[in-house]
């Protein structure tokens, strides 16, 4: 690769920044520029809620100190790109400046979905994705909000509910489906989360849709109306019905776009030397059977960045995701998943084992094929080891083997109750087979760790 080429990355989220870092590790001479209008320095989008709730300051969300970029010769440009001339390889900024590139990476991320609801652009109505959204939310909730309505039952919605709870603002939560996050979570897990939300005094309305957002005389929200005709007075509306690639400035150019920027498994777009990664990229076909053409998760963004870094450094690699994993936190309940656990499955082809603690906040599910080989797990309220399940699922371990070794998979802190023993017992009684039930360790007995 020529040494004085200029790689320009639009977007300093996890995908763009990981790409820049990997490329720098592999190539000492290439010139790298990262452009962002959102913030000069990379920050962790997932931590915005903690800034709002006073757990952290904004600078704490920045994973690298400011000197890091200069030291690694990654140039940062704070600007919004207005348009791109792909022929002359020239970026035009909103400020009127230009920048030439040799290779371009589009990693512009997402923006909150808006479905054309009446009143969706009123003051006090917003999504939560960017730093600017956070600042807007601080402004919108500074005073006078007696009730908030959140529309859309996903991860950002529940984060927003938690943020509003910090300000002691009561929340009504409209979810179109019959269960919370029910396009991802199986029924029991969805109900577990719903119960916990209600425990936190969130007014959760399932099977309820937004019809209209109603304005006061100052173009500010004063209420919403649901599809069932109920009017709910509120001074803040959170729109959290998913996100969509943020690529408006690329529409009507020669770049091939559908929902996102169309790419192959080398992240190559239809234009040579132009790549796209992260939330805004859309694969021509799904990267794996259990994946989607647009991957909008922190971890996939990071993997896209890692892989493209290698590609731009001249390595012959293509994107090949490994075993799926993900995590989230629903108020106080942590959630992890490894492998494939869809919301619904064909009982003819898939066996499900589900265990839930009597307290209703801790659960474990394992799906197996008809031969009993593990397909994936969901765990709520306790922690499991990534490496363990990466190996077990990759090697298609027998379910009974996974359960027998579950003590090795436990990732809860020391002295925590050994839930894996209860899970082993439950599995043994449901599925029988050759399952070893772990004994309590001396320490667990000593400190009375009970489930």
């Amino acid at each position, binding site marked *: 690769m020529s040494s004085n080429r200029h790689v320009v990355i639009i977007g300093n989220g*996890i995908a763009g920044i990981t790409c820049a870092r990997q490329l720098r*590790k592999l190539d000492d001479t290439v010139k790298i520029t990262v452009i962002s209008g959102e913030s000069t320095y990379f920050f*962790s989008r*997932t*931590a915005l809620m*903690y800034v709002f*709730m*006073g*757990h*952290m*300051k904004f600078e*704490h*969300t*920045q*994973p690298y*100190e400011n000197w890091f970029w200069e030291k690694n010769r990654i140039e940062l440009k704070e600007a919004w790109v207005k348009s791109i001339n792909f022929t002359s390889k020239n970026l035009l900024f909103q400020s009127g400046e230009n920048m030439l590139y040799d290779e371009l990476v589009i990693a512009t991320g997402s923006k909150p979905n808006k479905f054309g609801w009446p009143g969706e652009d009123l003051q006090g109505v917003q999504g939560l994705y960017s730093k600017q959204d956070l600042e807007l939310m601080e402004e919108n909730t500074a005073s006078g909000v007696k009730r908030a309505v959140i529309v859309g039952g996903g991860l950002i919605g529940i984060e927003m509910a938690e943020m509003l709870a*910090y300000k002691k603002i009561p929340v009504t939560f409209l979810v179109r489906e019959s269960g919370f996050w029910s396009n991802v979570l199986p029924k029991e897990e969805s109900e577990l989360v719903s119960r*916990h939300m209600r*425990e*936190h005094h969130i007014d959760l309305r399932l099977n309820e849709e937004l019809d209209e957002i109603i304005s006061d005389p100052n173009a500010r929200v004063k209420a919403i109306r649901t599809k069932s005709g109920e009017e709910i007075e509120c001074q803040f509306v959170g729109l959290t019905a998913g996100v969509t690639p943020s690529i408006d400035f690329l529409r009507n150019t020669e770049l091939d776009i559908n929902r996102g920027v169309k790419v192959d498994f080398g992240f190559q777009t239809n234009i040579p030397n132009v790549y796209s990664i992260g939330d805004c990229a859309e694969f021509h076909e799904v990267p794996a059977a259990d994946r989607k053409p647009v991957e909008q998760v*922190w*971890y996939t963004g*990071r*993997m896209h960045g*890692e*892989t493209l870094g*290698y590609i731009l450094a001249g*390595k012959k*690699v*293509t*994107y*090949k*995701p*490994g*075993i*799926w*994993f993900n*995590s*989230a*936190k629903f*108020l*106080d309940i*942590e959630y*992890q998943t490894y492998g494939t656990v869809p919301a619904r499955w064909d009982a003819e082809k898939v066996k499900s084992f589900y265990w839930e603690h009597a307290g209703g906040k801790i659960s474990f599910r394992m799906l197996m094929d008809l031969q009993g080989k593990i397909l994936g797990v969901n765990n709520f309220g306790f*922690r*499991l*080891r*990534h*490496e363990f399940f*990466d190996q077990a699922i990759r090697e298609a371990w027998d379910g009974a083997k996974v359960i027998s070794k579950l003590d090795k998979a436990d*990732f*809860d*802190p*020391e*002295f*925590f*109750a050994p839930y894996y023993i209860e899970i082993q017992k439950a599995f043994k009684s449901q599925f029988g087979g050759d399952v070893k039930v772990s004994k309590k360790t001396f320490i667990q007995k000593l*400190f009375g*760790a009970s489930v």
Partner: protein
Amino acid sequence: MKIIQSIGILLFLIGLAVFTAMPFLGNYTLTEELVLSSTKDIHQEKMAEVLAPMYGETYSSNFSFLSAYKVNFNEYNEALKAESKWDEVIWDDYSLPLAQTSLSSPVRDSPWLFFGLSIGLAVLGGLMYNLPKYRGEPEGIKNNGIFHSAMKNRGWMGMITGAYLILFYIILYWFPAYIVNQIWMVTPLSMLLSGNPASQWFLYGTIYTLAITVMGVRMFRKYRGNKYQQLRTASVMFFQTAFAFLIPEILVLLNQPYFDFKNIWPLDYDFFYDYQIDTFLSSGGVGMFMLIWGILLIVIGVPTFTYFFGKRWYCSWVCGCGGLAETLGDPYRQLSDKSVKAWKYERVIIHSVLVLAVVMTALTIVNYFSGFALLGNVTNQLHSIYGFAIGSVFAGVIGTGFYPFMGNRVWCRFGCPLAAYLGLVQRFKSRFRITTNGGQCISCGNCSTHCEMGIDVRWYAQRGQEIVRSSCVGCGVCSSVCPRGVLKLENGSTENRINEMPIIIGNDSIKINA
């Protein structure tokens, strides 16, 4: 609940106000008998003569009493110094015992009443504030509003608290004669425990232990549902109360040397001082046991326990400084500096203190056996410099006074020579590490923000690396606050304990070993 908590704060503030106002109570009258009974034999005659102008006069405040004392005493001493009569100069400071003995005040008359009104109310108020915390809320750690708080984010309340603590330490270490009322206040308690009157150190120990207890209760509430945090909090509360506070006093009651069995050299920097060794050697079997126990802890206890469990076995489960930091200091843990620059300073400073402590101790021991033939004066100088700069200023004034400014582990991170020793073992020969859970890190930064030792935990976690750092005290809060279950404190195989992962688990695009 809110009402109980508000009353709690009110009671705490009343207790604090009474405690703070106490030095201004009472008056001071000195007589010749009192001077004779409070000074060493060799100084009795001189002191009785020097202080004669003060006899019979009633001073209405500690300020007027102590300044009169200073005038008279200095007049005598300065004259001798001017004439270079060094042998006749009185180097002992009698201001504390004389102020104590000449005091007549309501506190001295009814010490238990004032104990109740100051420390008692503060403890009661603290418990009333802490116990109802989070009642009716689901289990889970809430760091809500920490950075919006005037107390916990270097706001005005934090500044006042820090200033108060610093002032308290300065008075305690260098001007104890001003707080004789408080010393009288805890004297009956001291008589009960050890049969001896209280010193300012007994006063300090009492407050210290109660602070750990009340704020330990706060920890139980804050980290409810988290067994690791609760157990280690119970552990520091136990070791402070039993080992640091009660057992040494009871030893004294039994005519044994005052000894804290869990205090380890070089944190316990005077362990090998000549007067300590003499005490051990002159106290029969018990003294000998103490000496051997102390040495065994240093040469076997520290490396062995640290090999198996990391330095946390001491720093966040046993140590008194750690105990205060983990309870009273917990609200300030997020104020530690996470920058690489701070880490560089940390390594230089803490290891310098360790070297200084080792050199000083080596010199002391050589001198002990050679009858102070080698550099005897230098050793004494070193002792007083170390005692002042490290023992008092660094460990006390800065160590605790700076909680609201630089976080709760300033001393442990930058100054403690024992932490440096434990850290060297932990870094190079230990089974302890914080395990990163594969690729689950989302770089949110909760772990780094709430690390009291200023470790940038996220730096490692987001790379899928295990965290192996000499400074980690294993408090486990990074693991507790992680929203994605990424961190776990573990003791395990020393193989691959320090791992470099070029590609994080879950991405099969790149084959590292292919």
